[in-house]
């Protein structure tokens, strides 16, 4: 698979069958998953979206790497737009080969909980869940674009979120965390 498909998927530039095909392959190919995770890590670092649990040092190293690669500094973009492509470019840069390796280590939180095993593990295929994914037993999720309300005016969106949070406090009959997983994953309309 050409690597630009991954960056296009990150940028929501891939639709329909192509998107489904890439998602399917992500479920079957551990190396592709690893690449996908690397792009996200770099993309988050580029957009200052790394959480405190990941650590600031990775962000600094990505910035340093970019500065060493003037080629990427000329990229004009709106926030997030083309981030996947940029991440792909940076990810392929020789100066950042180490990022993928060290990436998982940054997820090791101060409390000793090894997030690196989780996130990097998914990518590396060394956890059972990743094996499940790799075996293709996880069916592709129906393609939609982004975690936000569809067909909603921005002025209505916040109120609808209020109803979502309110309903979530009751919708825990089976799995208390599921409703809040939706809430925390909410990105808002692009």
């Amino acid at each position, binding site marked *: 698979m050409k690597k630009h498909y991954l960056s296009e998927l990150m940028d929501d530039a891939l639709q329909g069958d192509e998107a489904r095909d890439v998602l399917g392959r992500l479920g079957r190919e551990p190396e592709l998953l690893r690449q996908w995770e690397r792009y996200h890590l770099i993309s988050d670092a580029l957009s200052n979206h790394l959480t405190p649990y990941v650590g600031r040092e990775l962000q600094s190293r990505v910035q340093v790497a970019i500065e060493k690669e003037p080629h990427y500094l000329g990229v004009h973009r709106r926030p997030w737009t083309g981030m996947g492509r940029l991440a792909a470019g940076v990810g392929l840069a020789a100066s950042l080969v180490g990022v993928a390796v060290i990436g998982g280590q940054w997820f090791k939180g101060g409390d000793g909980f090894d997030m690196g095993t989780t996130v990097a593990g998914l990518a590396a295929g060394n956890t*059972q869940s990743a094996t499940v994914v790799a075996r293709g037993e996880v069916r592709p*999720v129906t393609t939609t674009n982004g975690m936000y*309300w569809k067909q909603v005016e921005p002025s209505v969106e916040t*109120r609808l979120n209020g109803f979502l949070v*309110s*309903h979530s406090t009751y919708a825990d*009959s089976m799995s208390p*965390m599921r409703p809040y*997983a939706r809430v925390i994953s909410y990105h808002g309309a692009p």
Partner: protein
Amino acid sequence: MKGAWVSAVFLSCWIPLADCLAGQKAEAMSLLEGIGESARELTYDGVFIYRQGNDIETVRIIHRADERGERERLISLSGAPREVVRTDLHVTCVNSSRRSVFVEALPLQSPWSGVSNLARRDIGDHYHFSVGPGERVAGRKTTRLVISPRDAYRYGYALWIDHESGLLLRSDLMGKDGEVLEQMLYTQIRLADDIPDHLLDSPLLTDGYTVHEPVGDGAAKPGVRREPQWRIRWVPDGFRSHQVIATEQPEGWSEHHLYSDGIATFSVYVEPLVQGNEPYEGLSTMGALSAFGRVAGANQLVVVGEVPSATVTRVGDSVSAP
């Protein structure tokens, strides 16, 4: 005579089959009860992946349950920092990119306590159940429970439940054609005896954020309630009313009607239409969630829930004014 033989053969096959189906349902009920109890009563620290459409979120969950009560924190590990902190009394949702905070009061008594058995008494009329061994998830052995709806007004589920703890480790929520609309998958989980306080406090709760007032019951003035006035004239078979609350807000009376069939839930909100607020009309979806809004007189009506679009639309159309 031949008819009697046919009947005997039929019965000899049917009775074990019926027993088997009844056994599957009983086992499914037991597993479902256990999922909720384990999630609430155990202390654990884990990471799960939540997938919806093309989007994959990695979320850390830290949950503590002890004599002090229940406290939970969910932390988004990618993208803009977002957190949800839930205690016995409140749920606080923080989105740093939008600099917004939603705070919602939790009901003092869960509407599910004591009624889930009642709600699930006729659940077999609306879902098929199948129980079997599941693949390992997050390195743990599981039992797989598949719940298939018998009509188009609800979704289906495939659940992978931890053998040892009863926790739900993986959940696929499926649409009518079996397509997975939403997926949750633990990649790592650690059962713990205790979790220190500092891991349960969010560092994101800072000044300068817009705090959104609660809707529904959370906005209620204590003690100011009345009998509900609005009527929901149609819900799918098997959905029962679990809670109806009418409360007074600054703009007028609002109502919250909660329905569940023991698996799926939806809420109906009726609120005064506030001047200056754009009415919400029509249908919206987000993964497995559907919302339908319309204006009824001077009121905004919203139906939201983990059910197909057809369900919220039909329910919303059936709501009638006092």
